[in-house]
């Protein structure tokens, strides 16, 4: 912790120092707190009086120490009461749920609404002789927000799947609470404790400023500030030191609290590979040998991607896609297939310049209709997006603004590309909604996204994406989040729209079957590279790369014989940053030879309109034909 969070460690040390010094005031203070010396009143800091003196000549530093003792003692009482109330009740409330939870929360809600200082003042005035009771009351009043947080944490854990698994395994309730719930709740409790402690100090000092805590000549930090206020015109030192020490203590508690929160969360989140790599030490992926000269695109190509490489990460280049080359002709439906992490989504999003966060193109060109896409900006970029290329995202609901009705979201896109009136935009929107086969389009336009189903939301998304009549539509896994019966309908819709509007489609998917339904050509990506591309039927029935072959064969289909085991691809996909410097698939490939692991394999043409990144592509094709001839 010290290594990674120097601030917090320092704050903690400072905190401990202050507490220990104040508690040991009788041993440490240079003067007794009430020793007056009218000759040296209101002096500034000096060697004999580190913090100066007050009106009566008493040493401020000593008074700060003794005052700290009193202040911190009461603050501790306040914190203790708050913690003892909030933690057990919050745990019970969150874990048990039901009527117990409801009862505790109703009382807690009332507590949340009470004005803390005013109520404490009432208690103080009634129990004027018994300060401890007022402090306890303050503790109770500070408990409700913490109770709510603890309850939330307990509730969240209770819903976790591993708690279900523990129940199934036959663990008793106490065992579940101790092994699974408490460790998870420990973090928020610690964080909240720091916050409550800080608030306790603040309120105690405030009350003592008002004169309710220390009885003169006793000192407390608040009373020192009050005295300082009285002599403001003559000397500001008391004010400075009294408030300063309070602020420092509260600040340290806050910093420690923040650090605790980071630590607590870190212990149970799964870091992305990229993030964990960053932690283990920066490793720059050295530039791989230059890609072969990009092939000139056919002049009629609608979209030409050449030598595209994409990387993520703020300072380093973690490549997620390397040397991607393909073209899309007007009106053509092309598939981009691969598993999660292969880079297909990054490639798709880079075409429409929607790479998220710290992703960026580090090499290559993208040309749409001959124009450079990567250099677009401002109004040109805005008109390109939506007007030349449309985009449909994977999660239908997430792609719509939940606070705006469906109709206006499409109208907005229409009016961003054409100067039409609101009324006309409304009409065109309803036409679009009808075109994507939504029933009662005029009614749907007036609904909010949460009022329609997932399938309908996806149609709305598609309507919005084609509103400005783009010539290329990028559909990024448009059916993955939908049921299979809806999937068929959406693919059908895309096919028809493409035909009607003369629109090319780039369909990104992990499912070769889905791609084969819609597309004429496809590219297969593996670990950031295109490993094969060509006509879809060729890819499926005469693959020229072992990965393509495996991809098609490893899923059960309706004809798979039950008693034969499925084709397994051993191992797993190498993550970005872990790519070998040779064929990325070699480590899992059953046809691997020495040749495959010596150097990176370039993608080469093999057959008509086909390319493959396998050294043995031609052999595979020959064998394939031989097998067919035999059958």
């Amino acid at each position, binding site marked *: 912790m010290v290594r990674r969070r120097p601030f917090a460690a320092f704050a903690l040390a400072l905190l401990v120092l202050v507490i220990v010094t104040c508690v040991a005031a009788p041993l440490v203070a240079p003067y007794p707190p009430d020793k007056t010396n009218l000759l040296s009143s209101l002096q500034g800091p000096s060697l004999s009086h580190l913090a100066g003196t007050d009106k009566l000549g008493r040493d401020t530093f000593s008074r700060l120490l003794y005052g700290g003792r009193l202040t911190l003692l009461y603050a501790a009482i306040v914190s203790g009461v708050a913690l003892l109330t909030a933690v057990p009740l919050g745990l019970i409330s969150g874990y048990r749920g039901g009527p117990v939870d409801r009862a505790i929360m109703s009382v807690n809600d*009332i507590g949340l609404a009470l*004005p803390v200082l005013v109520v404490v003042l009432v208690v103080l*005035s009634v129990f004027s*002789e018994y300060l401890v009771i007022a402090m306890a009351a303050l503790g109770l009043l500070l408990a409700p927000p913490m109770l709510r947080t603890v309850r939330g944490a307990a509730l969240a854990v209770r819903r976790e799947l591993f708690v279900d698994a523990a129940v199934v395994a036959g663990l008793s309730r106490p065992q579940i609470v101790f092994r699974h719930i408490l460790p998870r709740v420990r973090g928020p409790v610690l964080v909240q404790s720091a916050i409550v402690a800080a608030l306790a100090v603040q309120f105690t000092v405030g009350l003592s400023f*008002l004169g309710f805590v220390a009885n003169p000549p006793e000192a407390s930090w608040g009373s020192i*500030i009050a005295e300082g206020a009285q002599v403001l*015109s003559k000397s500001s030192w008391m004010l400075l030191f009294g408030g300063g020490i309070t602020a420092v203590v509260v600040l340290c508690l806050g910093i420690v609290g923040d650090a605790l929160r980071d630590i607590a969360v870190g212990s149970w989140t799964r870091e992305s590979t990229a993030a964990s790599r960053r932690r283990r030490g920066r490793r720059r992926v050295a530039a791989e040998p230059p890609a072969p000269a990009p092939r000139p695109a056919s002049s009629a190509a609608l979209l030409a991607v050449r030598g595209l490489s994409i990387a993520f990460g703020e300072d380093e280049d973690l490549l997620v896609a390397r040397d991607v080359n393909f073209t899309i002709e007007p009106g053509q439906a092309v598939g981009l297939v691969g598993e999660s992490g292969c880079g297909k989504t990054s490639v798709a999003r880079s075409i429409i310049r929607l790479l998220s966060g710290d992703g960026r193109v580090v090499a290559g060109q993208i040309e749409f209709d001959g124009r450079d896409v990567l250099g677009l900006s401002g109004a040109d970029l805005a008109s390109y997006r939506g007007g030349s290329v449309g985009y449909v995202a994977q999660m239908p609901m997430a792609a719509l603004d939940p606070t705006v009705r469906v109709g206006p979201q499409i109208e907005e896109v229409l009016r961003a590309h054409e100067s039409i009136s609101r009324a006309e935009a409304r009409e065109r929107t309803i036409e679009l909604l009808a075109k994507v086969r939504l029933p009662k389009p005029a009614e749907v336009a007036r609904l909010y996204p949460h009022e329609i189903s997932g399938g309908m939301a996806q149609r709305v998304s598609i309507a919005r994406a084609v509103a400005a009549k783009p010539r290329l539509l990028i559909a990024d896994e448009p059916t993955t989040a939908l049921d299979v019966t809806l999937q068929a309908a959406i693919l059908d819709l895309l096919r028809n729209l493409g035909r009607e509007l003369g629109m090319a489609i780039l369909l990104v998917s992990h499912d070769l079957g889905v791609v084969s339904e819609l597309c004429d050509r496809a590219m297969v990506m593996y670990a950031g590279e295109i490993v094969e591309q060509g006509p879809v039927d060729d890819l499926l029935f005469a693959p020229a790369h072992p990965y393509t072959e495996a991809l098609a064969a490893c899923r059960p289909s309706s004809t798979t014989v039950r008693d034969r085991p499925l084709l397994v691809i051993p191992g797993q996909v190498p993550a970005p940053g872990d790519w070998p410097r040779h064929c990325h698939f070699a480590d899992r490939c059953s046809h691997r030879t020495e040749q495959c692991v010596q150097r990176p394999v370039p993608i080469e043409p093999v057959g008509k309109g086909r390319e493959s990144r396998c050294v043995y592509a031609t052999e595979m094709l020959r064998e394939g034909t031989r097998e067919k001839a035999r059958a």
Partner: protein
Amino acid sequence: MTRLIVRRLLLAIPLLIVVSMLTFVLTAVAPGNPAAAVLGPEASAKEVDALSHEMGLDEPLPNQYMTWAGHAVTGDLGESLVSSESVGEALSSRLPVTLSLVIGSTAISLLFGVALGMFSALRGGSVGLLTDVLAMLGWAIPSFWLGLMLIDLVAVNLHWLPATGYVKFGESPLDWARSLILPWVTLAALGITGIAKQTRDSMREVMGREFIASLRGGGVPEWRIVLLHGLRNAAIPIVTVTGVFAIAMLGGAVLVETVFAMPGLGALAVTSARAGDLTMLQGIVVVIAVLVVIINLLVDISYGWLNPKARLA
């Protein structure tokens, strides 16, 4: 939407009842006699008895409460035990002061907080770090101490603004504002930084969501995306936090009014507490509880306006 408001108002009733019962219950539980506390140690037993009877302390507790409640509902909150002035009048003369203070500082916090937060979210980098540091400082520095330091600097040394006191709006709007500037800054210090941090965090989270990317993908201009879609969706947590700070400021007013010698409810609470003036305190507590209810109601109404799903609830 009306259902939402009615429900919130109905929920407020138990709150008000609990809050108003507070003093009675505490008095019953406390040792000693409130009448004796008011009159001081020199009072004779007869005087104490007389005052006790007048205060109704010899009645059983529920009766005491019902009597008070019955009067309160009609607007009669009793008389101060110390000065015999009508509690209602005292409160109504001081309410505008506290309201000016709290509403003003909330408005300032919201305005500057959101602006700072948006700037920090969209530009990022060092401004974000600065926001974090300021938020931490604003949270750690005691408000009344900040007030005193400001008085020292601005009023005493620089003579730019009055150090203490309050001028009624009716008398001179300019002086009213001048007398409130330092108190506003003091109270708002915590609010601005807290709201800025929440704004920044919310905006960052919302701007990373898929629908923002989809809108960009449709070619919608960036300013529309940030303001009409980004801020709209980020607004709910911001409103929540503003409500929390507004309530905290009601409490903070106690200290700030004392420091700046303003004749508001907070300062009155302190003096009443010192004097043991329970009737007055009772009135103050109830008024503040009503203000809290109003704040929560405003927050709920904003939710309804911002979040279509909530309107159906």
